[in-house]
C-alpha cells in the first residue's frame, strides 16, 4: 500500500507508526518542507521515503501519482494547508484521504468541505477528564470514523435513570458491559445494573442523544 504523509512534525510521527503497523511491507512517503526535518525523519524512520518539496509543489506530486496513492494523510502543522491538500486529494480521487487537525475548533470547516476522515487528536481530553473526575451523564469513550456510532458510558445516578437505561438497552438490543462503583468490570445480565454503576454501550449516536434527552427531560 502506498501511503503519503504530508508534514514531518509530531502528527506525522504517530501517523507513520500506525501506517507501518498496518502494512509493514508497504511504501510510506513523507513530504516535508524543510531539509532539517527531512534529515531527522530519515534517522527516525529508516524505512520511509522522504521528499523535500515546496508548499506549492505538493499538488503537482498528488496529480502525478493520483492513480498510485492509496492513502494520503495531511498532517502538517497548518490546518489551512491540511484542508487544501485534503480537498485537492479528494478531487483527484485518492481513495483514503485523512486530515489531522491542529486546532480542534477547525473541525466543522473540514466537515463542511466534505473531508470524510478528520482526526481530532484532542477529542480524548474531554472524555478522559470526565472519566478521571467521574462526573458525567454520558461520556463518549470512542467514536467510529466510518459509521455514526460509538461506545458511550452512561452513569446510573438514580433509580429513574436506571429504569430508562435498562429500557433503552432492551429496546435496542445493545451490547453493553458494566463498570461497578468499586471499579470492577462486569458483564450482564441487565438486571445486575445498579445505581452508581457506569454502563458502557455501543450504539448509534442518534440513539445516545435520544436517551440523554430522556434522562435530562425526565421523560420515560
Amino acid at each position, binding site marked *: *500500500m502506498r501511503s503519503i504523509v504530508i508534514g514531518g512534525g509530531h502528527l506525522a510521527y504517530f501517523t507513520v507508526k500506525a501506517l507501518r503497523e498496518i502494512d509493514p511491507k*508497504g*511504501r510510506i512517503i513523507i513530504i516535508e518542507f524543510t531539509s532539517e526535518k527531512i534529515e531527522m525523519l530519515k534517522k527516525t524512520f529508516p524505512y520511509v521515503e522522504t521528499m523535500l518539496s515546496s508548499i506549492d509543489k505538493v499538488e503537482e506530486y498528488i496529480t502525478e501519482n493520483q*492513480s*498510485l496513492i*492509496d492513502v494520503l494523510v495531511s498532517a502538517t502543522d497548518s490546518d489551512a494547508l491540511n484542508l487544501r491538500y485534503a480537498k485537492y486529494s479528494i478531487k483527484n480521487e485518492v*481513495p483514503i484521504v485523512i486530515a489531522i487537525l491542529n486546532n480542534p475548533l477547525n473541525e466543522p470547516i473540514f466537515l463542511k468541505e466534505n473531508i470524510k476522515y478528520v482526526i481530532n487528536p484532542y477529542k480524548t481530553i474531554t472524555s478522559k477528564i470526565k472519566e478521571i473526575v467521574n462526573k458525567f451523564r454520558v461520556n463518549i469513550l470512542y467514536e467510529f470514523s466510518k459509521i455514526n456510532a460509538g461506545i458511550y458510558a452512561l452513569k446510573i445516578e438514580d433509580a429513574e435513570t436506571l429504569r430508562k437505561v435498562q429500557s433503552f438497552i432492551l429496546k435496542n438490543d445493545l451490547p453493553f458491559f458494566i463498570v461497578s462503583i468499586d471499579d470492577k468490570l462486569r458483564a450482564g445480565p441487565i438486571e445486575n445494573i445498579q445505581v452508581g454503576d457506569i454502563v458502557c454501550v455501543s450504539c448509534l449516536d442518534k440513539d445516545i442523544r435520544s436517551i440523554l434527552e430522556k434522562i435530562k427531560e425526565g421523560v420515560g
Partner: protein
Amino acid sequence: MTPEEYSLIIRIVFALLSIVLAMFLGLRLRKIIIKNLSKFGHAFASRFAEILRYFLIILGVVIAFSILSLDVVVLTGISIGIFIILLISMRDVFSNYAGEIYLRVRRPFNEGDFIKIGRISGRVLSINSQDVELVSIKGERIIIPNQFFLKYPIVNKSSTMPTSIELKIIFKESTLEKAEETVMEALNEIRPELFEDPRIISINKTDGRTEVNLLLHIVNQRKVKWVINKLSREFHRKGIEIEIE
C-alpha cells in the same frame, strides 16, 4: 352593460384569479419542498419543486379555461393526451428522475464508494439527475442511467475496502516449480504497492502451458493497470514470455 358582458367580466376575473392562485401556491409549495427536501441535495430539491410548480400553473390555466366556459371535457382530454404523449416520449427521462429519487432517498451508495451493478463495477465519481458516473478499475469512465439502479441489484463495496483482483498469468514454456518461483519474484517487486501479501490460488499445466492464478488486494482501483504493466515488465526483463488475463 348587458348581463352577458357582466358574466364574461366576472368569469375573466375568476379565471385570472385561478391562474394567480396557482402561481402563488406554486411558489409557496416550491419553498416548502426546497426546505424539506434539501437534505437530499439542493439541486435535486429545486428541480423537484420546479416540476411541481409548473404542474400547478398548468392546472391553474386549465381551470381558468374551464371558468371561461370552454368545454372542460375537451380541455381535460387535451391535457391528458399531452400528458400521455409527454410520458411516453420522455419515459426514459422520467424513469431516470425516479432513479435519482431512489438514490437520494435510499442512499444505497455515496460518491467515492466502490459499487457493482450488473456486470459493471467501479468507483462513483458523481450522482447526477439522469445518470451516475463511475470510473472502472481499468480507468474507464462509465455513465450509468439512473433507471438501472431501479432494475438491478447494487453491491456497495466500501470505497476504502481493498478490492480483490484475480489475475491469470500464462507461461508458454515453463515447469510448475519454475513458474511459481518466477511469479513470487515478480510479486515481490510490486508488493509495496499492494494492501497485503498476494496469494497464488492455483497453478495448472494444460496443453504445455502453465497457468498461475493470483489474488491481489488493491486499495486504489486505478492501480490495476500499473500493476499489470509492472508485472509484464518484470517477466519481460527476465526474458520470459507470458500472457496476463
